[in-house]
């Protein structure tokens, strides 16, 4: 291992930190560089947005990642670092950091984004000019310091898309994270300072991950969410308050409303660094985000590739690291069970160096998984539960409505003259439905063809979809927003126009809609005789069969976007967050796989079989199913055994064991007792 040069990671935000940790855990030495004099990147600026529950923003994970890189013996951190050159032959690359020259095996670029220059891009929003107008980030800082609560404004308006989704300034893409950021911030503010009346002006609400519908529903009950961005924000004549001037896109009416404060949700722009771009041969897309590198073993991760959330950036960092590890050839891979039908997942698994095993069920715990195929029981290192294929069985739609996902429905819709496409009325919002609808609309170029897209929400979170949406709009497709489903008869839709408040009838030849897709039918079984060399007796924490629906993992930043409480089991795709078929979804699969290949670090819980009363307390209590009952041949009785690969070393069982039979390797009773001795050290 010593011969392999270090891997360099440029940028210590969530993607860079995750990449560095992944590389180091994978056996490489790592040089982690950041241009700032601190680690953490942009999320370091963000506070916690929990109410009574975690808001799943992932910002707190950055501190954990910083601690982990700082304490990892294989990672060297250099701050205020400037990369000046990359020289040498492909198998002997040398990275120049100022005067320092460092041989590297590969480079991961994770330099993140910069905030939009709203003052210059949208001077009509009054930032830095109109008193009471600020950015959402500034608002958050005042909220966290307590100064917002000390003198709260009576009214507060959030304005989305400041610097993005704006073709007038050449930024016709969605920054993807700002809607969720603003909604979570508003919810947190309401939780602490409920008296502030809040309004949020938006174009479309862009979902970011599972739970977005619930967030929107919650926010609808505490604040006004209004479609239509302001044309401008100006100072109240003779007063001190900002006035928000806008045309309501639903009603067309122009309104001028004063607010005590206006918070702009500032878009994400590509970082500009000509020196680095030229040194690393980075290619950029039309908006300046990096697309690739002409150089050998220079990989990209995180928001330098395009706007993404903290969680997505972390996963992206792990994927890039896994890729680099694979190219360097240091990781040991195995077979992985893919449960549910998804060719993409299998392709990604192969790409990541795993042997995919298509299984109908799997059983066991990490370190002792068995995948059940139709023919055999195969040992695997982990399992990926995926959503079902789009053409599989669907939830029923109303009569006269064809499925957007079925070949016949989609095919007929391509040729019919007047077609209505209904999106999120009988199914939760999904980006894949949205993508498919836009593709369908774009393909309908016939002279007499007319298309209507009816939806509750229209989102543009994925890069490329924004342009597609503009294209179909310009070619005459009408996009109609309705708060609830229209009445459907054969060839006829009836709805109340939200702007005019009048009943409208729409005659069409064909109606297609996105149905709700049921989950795949895989199962997670409990331990059986295959496991732990035939010693396993029972693992009572879970029912013997867990249908995959019940595997729906709780949203939890520590589990990432695909993880579950059970180590080695990941849930992705439809079951988690129906994304588009584009790269982001594929990378989520890759991230799930990336997690499987790394041995877990940290302490262990271990049972002393001599003390174990086999009371089953640990087996019942462990949320990770790590303890199992095994037959101890020496003692000729059952005892509890904690499967090391499945244990996350939380110590829950240690502190519950009534026989005090479980010890913790890094946090033993003795070490805690030594900590307590400090009480005497006056």
């Amino acid at each position, binding site marked *: 291992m010593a011969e392999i040069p270090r891997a360099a990671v440029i940028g210590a935000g969530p993607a860079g930190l995750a990449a560095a940790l992944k590389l180091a855990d994978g056996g490489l030495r790592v040089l982690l560089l950041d241009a700032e004099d601190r680690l953490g990147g942009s999320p370091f600026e963000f506070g916690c947005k929990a109410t009574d529950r975690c808001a799943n923003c992932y910002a707190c994970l950055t501190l954990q990642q910083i601690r982990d890189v700082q304490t990892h013996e294989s990672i060297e951190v250099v701050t205020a670092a400037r990369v000046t050159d990359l020289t040498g032959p492909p198998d002997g690359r040398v990275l120049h950091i100022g005067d320092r020259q460092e041989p590297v095996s590969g480079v991961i670029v994770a330099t993140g984004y910069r905030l939009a220059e709203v003052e210059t891009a949208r001077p009509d929003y009054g930032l830095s000019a109109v008193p009471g107008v600020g950015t959402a980030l500034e608002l958050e800082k005042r909220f966290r310091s307590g100064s917002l609560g000390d003198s709260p404004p009576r009214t507060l308006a959030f304005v989305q898309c400041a610097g993005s989704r704006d073709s007038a300034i050449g930024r016709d893409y969605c920054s993807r994270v700002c809607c969720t950021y603003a909604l979570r911030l508003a919810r947190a503010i309401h939780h602490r300072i409920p008296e502030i009346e809040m309004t949020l002006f938006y174009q479309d609400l862009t979902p970011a991950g599972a739970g977005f519908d619930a967030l929107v529903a919650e926010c609808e009950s505490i604040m006004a969410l209004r479609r239509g961005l302001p044309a401008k924000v100006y100072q109240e004549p003779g007063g001190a308050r900002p006035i928000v001037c806008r045309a309501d896109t639903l009603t067309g009416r122009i309104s001028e409303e004063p607010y005590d404060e206006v918070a702009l949700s500032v878009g994400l722009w590509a970082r500009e660094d000509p020196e680095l771009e030229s040194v690393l041969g980075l290619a950029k897309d039309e908006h300046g985000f990096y697309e690739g590198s002409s150089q050998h073993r220079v990989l990209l991760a995180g928001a330098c590739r395009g706007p993404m959330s903290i969680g997505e950036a972390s996963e992206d960092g792990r994927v890039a690291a896994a890729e680099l590890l694979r190219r360097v050839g240091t990781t040991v891979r195995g077979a992985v069970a893919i449960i549910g039908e998804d060719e993409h997942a299998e392709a990604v698994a192969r790409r990541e160096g795993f042997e995919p095993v298509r299984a109908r069920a799997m059983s066991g715990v990490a370190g002792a998984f068995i995948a059940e195929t139709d023919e055999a029981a195969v040992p695997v290192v982990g399992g990926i539960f995926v959503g079902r294929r789009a053409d599989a069985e669907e939830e029923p739609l109303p009569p006269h409505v064809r499925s957007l996902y079925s070949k016949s429905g989609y095919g007929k819709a391509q040729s019919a003259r007047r077609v209505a496409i209904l999106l999120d009325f009988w199914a939760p919002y999904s980006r894949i439905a949205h993508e498919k609808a836009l593709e369908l609309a774009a393909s309908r170029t016939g002279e007499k063809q007319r298309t209507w897209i009816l939806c509750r929400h229209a989102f543009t979170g994925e890069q490329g979809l924004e342009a597609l949406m503009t294209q179909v709009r310009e070619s005459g497709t009408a996009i109609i927003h309705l708060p609830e489903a229209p009445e459907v008869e054969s060839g006829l839709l009836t709805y109340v126009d939200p702007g005019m408040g009048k009943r409208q009838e729409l005659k069409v030849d064909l109606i297609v809609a996105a149905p709700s897709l049921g989950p795949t039918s895989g199962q997670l079984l409990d331990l059986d005789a295959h496991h732990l060399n035939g010693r396993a007796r029972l693992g009572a924490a879970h029912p013997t069969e867990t249908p995959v629906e019940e595997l729906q993992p709780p949203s939890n930043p520590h589990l990432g976007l695909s993880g579950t409480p059970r180590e080695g089991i990941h849930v992705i795709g439809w079951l988690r967050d129906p994304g588009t078929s584009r790269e982001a979804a594929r990378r989520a699969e890759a991230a799930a796989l990336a997690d499987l290949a790394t041995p877990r670090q940290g302490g262990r819980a271990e049972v002393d079989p001599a003390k174990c009363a086999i009371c089953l*307390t640990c087996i019942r209590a462990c949320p990770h199913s790590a303890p199992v009952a095994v037959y101890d041949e020496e003692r000729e009785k059952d005892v509890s055994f904690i499967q090391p690969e499945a244990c996350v070393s939380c110590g829950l069982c240690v502190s519950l064991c*009534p026989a*005090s*039979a479980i010890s913790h390797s890094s946090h033993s009773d003795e070490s805690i007792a030594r900590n307590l001795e400090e009480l005497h050290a006056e």
Partner: protein
Amino acid sequence: MIVADRKPLDEILEMVGDANRILVSACNTCVTVCLAGGRREAAILASQIRIHAQEAGRTVEVRENCLERHCDPEFLAELAGELEWADVMVSTACGVGVNLASEVYPSARIIPGLNTSFFGATDAPGRWLEMCGGCGDCVLHRTGGICPIVRCAKSILNGPCGGSQDGKCEVDPDTPCAWQEIIDRLALQGRSAELEAVEPVKDWGTSHSGGRRRRIVDEVFQAEGEGEA
């Protein structure tokens, strides 16, 4: 298993009195499994005794140990040295353990730290339910495996009484009526007709009424003196 409950600390402290050297002895069998008197609970009790003494401005010495079982004299042998030292031993074993330890060490002051409650089973993690009355004359084959002796508040053998409503017991609306359960269970097994017969009065002679009960396995048991013969 035998299910027990920790006694309130006040009661234990009153029994301990002004003893300065206290041994808390745990049992690694039933009372460990029912989270009442294993190593952990003994450690908690010992700590409480120390804290209480501290608050009262006294110093006491408390030691803890844990035996595999308190219901076999061989395991109790481990206590000999500790009992030399201790003024008093608080047993967190069940009442059986307290009895036997007191018999093995007749001059030692051994006090119960638990109230021994019943023979029960884990119903859900952290909850145990009484299942058997230990009456010495099992009728479970006639009642679908549901013990009317302990699961019915009135131990009725020809139940249910008039207070059974909505499947619940009149004594506690959270407790299922055992006879409703028996009727349902036998119906499930297609044996409802069996309930038409009048169950005769029970012979309680095999139960506690007969005084201290004993069980002898002749194959193993050797009466005193027989061994030498």
